[in-house]
């Protein structure tokens, strides 16, 4: 008995030894800075050559300033939200469709997969900037094509506007989908083919199989891909809000830019929470209900 206890303790000790580096790093480079920037955000910070940082408490001033007298930052936040609202569903749907195409019995799957994954390797802030903005004549020709003109003429403005925006950003949407495509493909390949065969024998159409088998099985992947997509969009170097936060460090000071960082952080957390709730919750309930219905029969 005693021996077992010491074994347990020993195991715990070994575990702590292995993750010790991480604990130190977390305390030093994440937890402490988190508190510090929270503290900064409620202060006016002046940098003194000799004494270092001088902080004077200013209450919510930085936060109020951000919302009342910083239209550039607010616009950037709005654009960030708009980007998430446009990109996230499209990236998820498109990468799911591409993964399903790749999951068919086709030749050259590896090749196509490699092509679709390529942007993950090369897309960085400056490269996207140079590539997408310079091949802008492509997107403009895409948006000025006859098809889009027709769409603009036929549809009311509130519909044609978003469609135009989506076509404009199509390349970026595709370029941001590489990891998600691979995740979905891995998820699809984990589904047992026999389930589809059984459904087929019972007379289910491919359409029904998709809604009843594929989609529920992919639920965890949809969640992971969504979180990945949001984090990627929120930390991408071209994000205007991030540039403003960094820019403010050396103009309005550490206090104000800390407040901006915290506002941004809370916004990202809200978006993540909302998406996690949307994807995880209603599905779960619906399927539990359906399960019960089947039990009754």
């Amino acid at each position, binding site marked *: 008995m005693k021996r077992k206890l010491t074994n347990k303790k020993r195991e715990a000790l070994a575990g702590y030894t292995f993750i010790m580096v991480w604990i130190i*790093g977390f305390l030093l480079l994440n937890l402490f800075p988190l508190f510090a920037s929270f503290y900064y955000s409620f202060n006016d910070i002046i940098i003194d050559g000799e004494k270092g*940082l001088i902080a004077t408490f200013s209450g919510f001033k930085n936060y109020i300033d951000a919302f009342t007298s910083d239209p550039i930052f607010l616009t950037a936040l709005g654009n960030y939200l708009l980007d998430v609202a446009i990109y996230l569903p499209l990236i998820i749907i498109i990468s799911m469709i591409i993964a399903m195409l790749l999951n068919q019995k086709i030749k050259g799957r590896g090749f196509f997969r490699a092509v679709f994954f*390529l942007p993950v390797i090369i897309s960085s802030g400056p*490269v996207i900037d140079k*590539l997408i903005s310079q091949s802008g004549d492509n997107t403009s020709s895409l948006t000025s094509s006859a098809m889009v003109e027709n769409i603009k003429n036929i549809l009311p403005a509130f519909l044609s506007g978003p469609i135009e925006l989506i076509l404009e950003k199509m*390349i970026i949407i595709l370029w941001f989908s590489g990891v998600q495509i691979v995740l979905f493909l891995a998820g699809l390949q984990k589904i047992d083919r026999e389930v589809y065969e059984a459904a087929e024998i019972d007379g289910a159409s491919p359409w029904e199989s998709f809604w009843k088998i594929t989609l529920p099985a992919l639920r965890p992947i949809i969640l992971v891909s969504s979180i990945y997509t949001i984090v990627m969009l929120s930390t991408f170097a071209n994000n205007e809000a991030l540039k403003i936060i960094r820019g403010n460090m050396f103009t309005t000071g550490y206090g104000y830019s800390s407040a901006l960082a915290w506002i941004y952080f809370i916004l990202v957390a809200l978006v993540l929470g909302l998406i996690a709730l949307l994807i995880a919750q209603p599905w779960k309930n619906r399927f539990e209900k359906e399960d019960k219905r089947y039990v009754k029969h």
Partner: protein
Amino acid sequence: MSNIKREKALGKARRFILGVRFTDGLIFKLIIYLLLISIGFVFVYPLLHMVSYSFQSLEDLLNPQIGYVPSRLYLGSYREAFRTLNYFKTFGTTLLVTLLPALLQTIVASFIGYGFARFEFKGKKLFMALLIATYIIPPQVTMIPRYVMYTEMGLINNLLSVLLPASLGQGLYSAIFVLIFYQFYKMIPKVLDEAAQIDGASRAYIYFRIAVPLSKPSFITVFLFSFVWYWNETYFASLFMGGGKYDTLLLKLLNFNSAYEKVFGDDNLINEGTTMSATLLIILPLLIVYFILQKQFIEGIDKAGITGE
């Protein structure tokens, strides 16, 4: 008789083209290939555009009749891009500030992932939750105090400002890498450890002699992604190491226009060809690595994706 035969053949052909349930017919296949090829084309379109423009002279670029095929192979853009980027020297710097943190991060992530996967201890769930939190929290929140800290420690414009977080498991996307290792080490049966322990092996011995050799594929994946992501990182690099001493290729691309003016003077206007050549030169090393090792990249994500829960 021949009628029946003909009908049979017709049926066969029909089945071949449309399939029994459509999804196994020829038309369906053709549609799939058509879709994949056209989507693939949109994917590589920006790259093709870049390659084409990088070989066009100014006259070609301005000539509306010349679309994507240059009238002659023009290398002037590459010459200009090479000079502006100071390519070979910058390439060396980039390798230094990319390979070192990637290497450190990989080793440390394996260590941490092993600790989480193989041992039971108090607070493990909490630590893992915090680990995931470090992935979700935008690094901008911790950036300013880190900057203050590094300034006090004299780490600004110092290679250590990248190496320190990497070696403490708090580098670029460290949490993902720890989770990849965690996922892998979880799969090694514990019996293996117990057997080795009975034989008198120490924990360190087990880690280095059993776990590390088994996890070679994970090491490769993590290192590759770490390398690529450090290569592509500009936001923090420009803040912590933007003093000029550690200008990476991508930092040069970020300020390419002003760098060009410095080299060629204000009155020489930069053209699209030069920008495209520079971009191509900068992603070329990544393209080569990807071309050789694309299986490792993709399969790594494949396996890590199962992290699902």
